[in-house]
């Protein structure tokens, strides 16, 4: 099959080249359709309970997506701040996609003034004189409902929560808000936060990353190819893999799928990984040319002889990448699919376009084959030959240190924790991180748990349960403020009774509750409809959370679930949502996905190798370096307290998919040498290493350095991923060239 392919490609080279270029041009058109997606909730499946609850909040209560607008000044109540602030907030309120704004100058309250019930804004009109402003300042700061909720305790900052319409284009709304802020005199005092703003920043940075990381990966690969091949031919694998990247991104654009933060690493990964196939074909082509074959013959033989290990390497990589498709996280599943497709494209192009071009390569260029590079290549080969002899003699001394390292690493593996705190995606001193920290410190956080209570909301008993539930919620660490219809009813009762504090109680009779609800329905309908549906069958409780840490959210969630069981069993159906819950669900999914994808990748890769080499033993042996690599990698993560996140969750399967290539190349050549050297068993290992050692080294260097460019990402998590994956390439190539070689030499010895 490969022989046929090699011959056909070489004979019909111009057709192959033409068709490949045509496909590339067509798919390149669709790259313009690519869009980035940073919404964390879209990474969860639509049927995820947290997503379903948020959908209910969106449809029944007008939405829960909020942009947090933080205003910092010496004194928020100074006329220089309060007036432009009111103008700014009014301007934002009028924007399309903005549902409402909760904050100092907009929030409504129920007040009882004598025999009058007044539903009005906290600040109905901004006082003009300093004395009245100071009176307002002390009134607001002395009210526990506003202090530390809307205004910082020292009056130096204020928080406005801008609720966006569920159907709005949130990125566009945030952009418009930014524009309005930039036109305001308070632009230097205002920062935006909240999930839509953070996701917008994330998207901006993702786009910047895509523009930066791919060219960097190309530059690194070009440099490696140049020093490895020292010929124009050396750039051919780069051209081939760029075509594969264009095909993949074009296909994603054509299918209308978004690029998520996980997908940002896809182009550099494809460049690093996919180039290997072209490199192997090119290396074999040059060997064949050295042996005196013509370009057409050499290209054909490169495909027929190297095609199998290249195919195997690509197949294992595809399987490793595709293992991510079993993940519960949508973006990881998409990454698994398109990375596997990308590798397939790279394989197809390496086995067709590359030999087609080589078969028509001018003889002049081939002079490089007889240049000093050949001698250097030989010198490297000689070094590997000597290494082969050493391994044959001291196989135990090679294996033992690896085992010790793995045992030590094993001690730290249980310390690996996962983390989905998306604030950690940003660098510690960045504006988004700073705003999140200030909001957490001064306003009790911007994340909000959402509880949907389904039952007879006018039932005093259920409302009492809700009241007690809220009370106990506040005892959970990091839950700072809660709000629900219970609070509104308590305030209304107080207002109806002359604002006397002793009446800030939940009414006890059903009729009282019904009548207060009717009274409130005479006011701005949003005041009530944000927390209870018109038929009083659904109610909403919100609870602010001041930490973005997955572990803390997970602990809070456990306690929340116990509280729900305690208060609402047999009384009402309660579902939990909100951004902390989405983070928690992602956190759970990452943990489970990581294990499932790792096992899937290992089993699939093992099965593939065992089938292709027709040996279970060889399948197991081939896995050894990658298993050791994984152990070392997770040990390092545990030791250095590097958390597993959305991107590093794919690390294990990617490492298996790529790292196994070195084992495959080595195994294939080992079997070839075994077949060719039946009587000279001691020469098998040195010859194998001479033949594939330099290519493995070049490839590991190319892939490792290709991934290392990820340290220039705007995101911490991608930087970490780049370092870790580069490290796994190093370990798996070293593992193949040491432990695997030692194990194979054992096999030769035992067969004597």
């Amino acid at each position, binding site marked *: 099959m490969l022989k046929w392919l090699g011959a056909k490609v070489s004979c019909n080279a111009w057709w192959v080249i033409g068709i490949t270029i045509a496909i590339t041009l067509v798919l390149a058109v669709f790259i313009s359709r690519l869009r980035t997606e940073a919404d964390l909730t879209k990474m969860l499946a639509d049927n995820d309970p947290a997503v379903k609850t948020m959908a209910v909040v969106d*449809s*029944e209560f007008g939405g829960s997506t909020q942009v947090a607008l933080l205003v910092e000044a010496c004194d928020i109540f100074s006329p220089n701040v309060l007036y432009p602030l009111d103008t700014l907030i009014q301007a934002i309120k009028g924007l399309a996609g903005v549902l409402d704004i909760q904050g100092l100058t907009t929030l*409504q309250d129920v*007040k009882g003034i004598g*025999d*009058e*019930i*007044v*539903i*009005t*804004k906290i600040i*109905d009109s901004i006082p003009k004189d300093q004395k009245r402003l100071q009176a307002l300042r002390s009134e607001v700061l002395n009210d526990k409902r506003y202090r530390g909720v809307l205004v910082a305790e020292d009056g130096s900052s204020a928080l406005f929560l801008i609720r966006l319409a569920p159907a709005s284009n949130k990125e566009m709304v945030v952009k418009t808000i930014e524009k309005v802020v930039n036109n305001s005199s308070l632009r230097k005092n205002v920062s935006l936060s909240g999930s839509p703003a953070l996701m917008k920043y994330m998207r901006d940075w993702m786009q910047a990353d895509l523009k930066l990381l791919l060219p960097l990966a190309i530059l690194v690969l070009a440099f490696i190819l140049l020093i490895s091949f020292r010929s124009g031919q050396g750039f051919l694998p780069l051209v081939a893999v760029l075509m594969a990247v264009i095909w993949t991104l074009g296909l994603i654009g054509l299918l209308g799928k978004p690029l998520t933060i996980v997908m940002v690493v896809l182009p550099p990964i494809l460049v690093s990984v996919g180039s290997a196939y072209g490199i192997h074909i090119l290396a074999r082509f040059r060997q064949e040319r050295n042996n005196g074959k013509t370009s057409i013959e050499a290209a054909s033989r490169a495909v027929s002889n190297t095609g199998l290990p290249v195919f195997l390497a690509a197949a294992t990589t595809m399987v490793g990448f595709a293992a991510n498709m079993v993940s519960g996280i949508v973006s990881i599943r998409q990454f698994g699919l398109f990375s596997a497709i990308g590798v397939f494209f790279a394989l197809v192009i390496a086995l067709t376009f590359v030999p087609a071009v080589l078969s028509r390569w001018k003889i002049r260029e081939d002079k490089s084959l007889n240049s000093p590079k050949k001698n250097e290549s030989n010198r490297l080969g000689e070094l590997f030959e000597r290494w082969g002899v050493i391994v044959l003699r001291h196989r135990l001394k090679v294996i033992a240190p690896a085992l010790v390292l793995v045992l030590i690493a094993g001690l730290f593996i249980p310390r690996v924790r996962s983390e989905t705190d998306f604030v950690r995606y940003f660098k510690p001193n960045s504006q988004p991180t700073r705003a999140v920290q200030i909001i957490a410190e001064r306003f009790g956080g911007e994340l909000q748990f959402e509880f949907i209570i389904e039952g007879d909301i*006018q039932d005093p008993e259920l409302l009492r349960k809700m009241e007690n539930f809220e009370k106990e919620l506040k005892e959970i660490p990091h839950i700072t403020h809660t709000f629900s219809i219970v609070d509104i009813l308590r305030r209304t009762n107080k207002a*109806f*009774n002359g604002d006397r504090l002793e009446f800030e109680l939940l*009414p006890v*009779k*059903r*009729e*009282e509750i*019904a*009548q*207060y609800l*009717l*009274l409130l*329905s*005479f*006011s*701005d*309908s949003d005041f*009530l*409809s944000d927390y209870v*549906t*018109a*038929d009083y*069958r659904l109610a909403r409780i919100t609870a602010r959370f001041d930490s973005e840490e997955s572990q803390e959210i997970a602990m809070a969630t456990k306690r929340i679930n116990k509280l729900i069981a305690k208060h609402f069993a047999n009384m009402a159906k309660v579902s939990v949502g909100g951004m902390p819950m989405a983070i928690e669900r992602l956190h759970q999914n990452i943990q489970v996905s990581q294990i499932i994808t790792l096992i899937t990748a290992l089993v699939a890769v093992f099965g593939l190798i065992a089938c292709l080499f027709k040996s279970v033993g060889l399948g197991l042996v081939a896995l050894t370096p990658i298993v050791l690599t994984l152990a070392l990698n997770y040990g390092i993560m545990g030791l250095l307290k590097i958390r597993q996140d959305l991107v590093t969750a794919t690390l294990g399967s990617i490492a298996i998919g790529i790292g196994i290539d070195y084992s495959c190349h080595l195994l294939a050549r080992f079997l070839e040498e075994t077949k060719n050297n039946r009587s000279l068993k001691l020469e098998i290992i040195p010859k194998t290493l001479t033949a594939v050692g330099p290519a493995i080294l070049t490839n590991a260097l190319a892939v490792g350095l290709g991934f290392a460019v990820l340290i220039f990402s705007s995101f911490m998590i991608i930087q970490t991923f780049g370092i870790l994956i580069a490290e796994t390439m190093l370990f798996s190539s070293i593992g193949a060239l040491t432990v695997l070689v030692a194990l194979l030499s054992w096999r030769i010895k035992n067969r004597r």
Partner: protein
Amino acid sequence: MRKIIATILLGAGILFATHPAQADNLSGEEILNRVKKATVAKDRKATATMTITDRNGRVQTRTVLFVTKGDSKLMATFQEPPDLRGVTFMTTKVDNMWIYLPTQARVRRISGSMVNQGFGGSDFSYKEMNNISSVASDKAVEKVEETTLNNKPTYRLTLKETDGTLSRLWIEKIAFLPLVIEKLDAKGAVKKRIQFGDFAQDDSIWTPRLIQIQDLNKNSKTEIRIMEFQLNTGIKDNFFTEANMKRGGR
């Protein structure tokens, strides 16, 4: 609530004695005057069912006894559901509103942002009520067109609200019955639509027994179906008192 009154008044007070031949030469102001004459009854008592359907199809049904006098005095007493029985809302002029809650046995004046918002969770607002009132009084007529609506010959009046926004009013040409009012937003898109139907005649006054309002922005609707009504029963001004609120407007 005022809007409900106004709507009921508008629909109920139409004179139909106008000769059709004369109508063709009527100016917008004259048409409105005909409507004005037609819409104002001295007083009215009506029991109506108000069905409010929100954007998610959640329905609330309430039965209310409305007692009105002129174009501003109203007392609305809830009769159903049982939890709300006896709750009474009263208004005597703009910004002068009271509510009585039987469970608290107290009347409270209500003010603040409530003034411009919906009545009892419905799509009717007080401001809209004023606007509808002025259809028959001091509203500026921008344009008069003759058209048909559901095969009925109608006048279509384009009216300018005090806030500068426009509304369109379809008036049936023969009996001067208001059929549809559309409230437009600043961009000229319809934000609310009020439809009148099932007219009944009593004492030479037509009363729409079915009034539907749709809020196209909120995607909600409110339907008022008048089950029984009495006109010109001689209600006195001193009927609209706190004491009568406590008695449930009877």
